[in-house]
């Protein structure tokens, strides 16, 4: 009898222990299941492997990878990032986009180039899938109505173009009434900026000489283009040359051609040429939609600077992509917190409602979108390349 009691007691304790352990593991399992249900994937489209802007594309990729790692840690999510190289080429971007749409990805970051967004926007719209770009700035991308699921965390060229033109006028980068040469690379982004800047400069009394070259040329043919432009278009009356290009390498080659021919003009590049590793002609101005966070005191920027170190040198081009990726990650996290499984439709709805404060944003401005996907806030940054080839942000614009 006594033994039976002991045995029954032991069984009871064991049962209690089992229930406790099972209950705990069940809770853990539930927690795990809950966490696992915020497991999904997103994709990034960027020119990180091929094409004329691989340096910038690689920067975008690294910042996106960092953003995913930081958001997963902060939100307790398990979201993976698929990588798709587009070579800044609309045809390749279309192929990649179709592949992304056929996958399980619920949203995308990129693509980088405006011409690529023109090509893939309707595809994403048809799939009901949000895609957030950190660098496509052509104004019509948001206003055309074809890209209904497109968002961007950068101001469009209707902001950058006038900002740059007004800076040139205000700070007299060219003498009044002189000739300003502006050269486009026959891409949508470049031609868009030329179209915005030319009337402003003309109205200010400058003579605008608009020329073009084929941005897809390489090697000797490219050098022929640049030699000829420098020889025939950069005259003694030219004091400023604006190069709104997507290739920093080309901007560097053109700048060196000018130096070789003994032409002393000021160069002005736009965000596509912002690459401290490639475009380093002293005296040049370079505008961008992304800030220099290397000296920023904000907690977000410090965390990014710390995290991005392992990828090596970077410029201001990657920060907007970090922001774009964070928008997507936060949208997915908000869906999960509401107890739902992330899908393209609910993530799209969450992206539309994005509301990141300026202090929490790496861009230095609040991140909110208009109905057409454009950024509500206006931001723009300008850098000057000093004699050592270093980019110095201009505070007073």
């Amino acid at each position, binding site marked *: 009898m006594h033994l039976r009691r002991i045995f029954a007691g032991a069984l009871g304790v064991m049962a209690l222990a089992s229930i406790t352990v099972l209950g705990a593991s069940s809770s853990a399992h539930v927690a795990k299941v809950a966490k696992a249900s915020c497991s999904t994937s997103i994709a990034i489209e960027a020119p990180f492997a091929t094409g004329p802007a691989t340096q910038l594309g690689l920067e975008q990729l690294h910042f996106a990878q960092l953003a995913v790692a930081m958001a997963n840690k902060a939100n307790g999510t398990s979201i993976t990032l698929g990588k798709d190289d587009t070579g800044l080429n609309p045809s390749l971007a279309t192929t990649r986009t179709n592949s992304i749409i056929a996958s399980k990805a619920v949203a995308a970051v990129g693509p980088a180039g405006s011409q690529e967004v023109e090509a893939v926007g309707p595809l994403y719209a048809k799939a009901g899938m949000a895609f957030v770009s950190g660098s496509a700035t052509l104004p019509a991308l948001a206003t055309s109505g074809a890209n209904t699921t497109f968002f961007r965390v950068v101001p469009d060229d209707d902001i950058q173009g006038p900002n740059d033109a007004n800076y040139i006028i205000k700070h007299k980068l060219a003498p009044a009434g002189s000739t300003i040469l502006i050269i486009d690379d026959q891409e949508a982004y470049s031609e868009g900026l030329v179209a915005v800047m030319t009337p402003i400069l003309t109205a200010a009394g400058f003579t605008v000489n608009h020329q073009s070259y084929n941005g897809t040329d390489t090697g*000797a043919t490219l050098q*022929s283009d640049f030699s*000829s432009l420098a*020889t*025939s278009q950069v005259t003694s009356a030219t004091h400023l040359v604006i190069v709104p290009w997507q290739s920093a390498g080309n901007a*560097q080659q053109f700048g060196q051609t000018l130096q070789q021919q003994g032409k002393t003009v000021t160069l002005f590049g736009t965000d596509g040429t912002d690459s401290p590793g490639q475009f380093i002609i002293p005296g040049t101005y370079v505008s961008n939609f992304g800030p220099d966070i290397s000296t920023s005191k904000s907690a977000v920027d410090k965390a990014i600077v710390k995290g991005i170190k392992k990828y090596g040198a970077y410029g201001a081009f990657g920060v907007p992509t970090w922001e774009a990726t964070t928008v997507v990650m936060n949208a997915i996290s908000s869906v999960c917190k509401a107890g739902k499984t992330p899908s393209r439709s609910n993530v799209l709805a969450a992206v539309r409602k994005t509301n990141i404060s300026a202090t929490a944003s790496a861009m230095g401005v609040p991140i909110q979108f208009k109905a057409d996907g454009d950024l509500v806030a206006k931001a723009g940054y300008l850098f000057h390349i000093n004699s050592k080839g270093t980019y110095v942000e201009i505070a007073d614009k």
Partner: protein
Amino acid sequence: MQIFISTLVSGIVVGCLYALIALGYSMVYGVLKLLNFAHGDLYMVGAFVGYFAIQWFGGATALIIPVPLLIIFMMLIAGFGVGALGVAIERFAYRPLRNAPRIAPLITALGVSFILEDSVLLLFGGFTRNYNTPAFLPFRQSIHIDGVNIWSVQIIVVVVSVAMMFGLRELVNRTLFGKSMRAVASDREAAEMLGVNVDRTIAITFFVGSAMAGVAGVMSGLAFGQISNIIGFLAGLKAFTAAVVGGIGSIPGAMIGGLAIGLCESFSSSYISSQYSDLIVFALLIAVMLVRPQGVFGQPPLQKV
């Protein structure tokens, strides 16, 4: 006048590089009747060899050897390296197809072109690299003619190119190998029957042509700065145009064709627009083909009666 002189200098520099690549096209076509579309990519490989040679010796801003030695070394290593690559390509990709229908080696050549481009892409990445030549050959090292700066690098390109072209002419006209090459180009079977080692002759032809393309790649990097895995395609296309305009299979034709294409490109960019330079160059090709299908220096095909 300044615009004219500057455009002329630019056209001659670019033309010399096209000529060096075109010579390879013409030589290979002469002996094998093969259009080696991978030839432009050999020029690209040469450019990369030169770039890494600079890095090996400390980089553009911290060179550990004198600049003249560096340039000689770059050209030698690119010449021999790319020449050897050309021989390997001939041995493994083209020789087995020597008696196949003409379309087979043509398609193979396209395949080799993609392999070379993508191999460089996989090995070294897609981003452009820059020789940063002004760091060790500053722009102030120029001669000045009527207000036009002619950079020392441009002079080096022209001098080396002309020397190589004349060297090739002497090789072809005055050496035993040259005689063998001309014999094989004229009639391969007959040359073989007369004791010419056809395989070796073709291999050496590929070596010489590829070496010239490799050296052209180095000079392109020195003069223009930027290199990437895709620079070979357009350069090869322009050089092919030059070879055809000059007369495919003709060595003087390739030289003149290259210079003509370079000058045409340069002058049309300067005096019309750089947007139309490609259009004008290829229109020239069509015009020459319509008027003289065998090219300016080419021989009309013999008709048996």
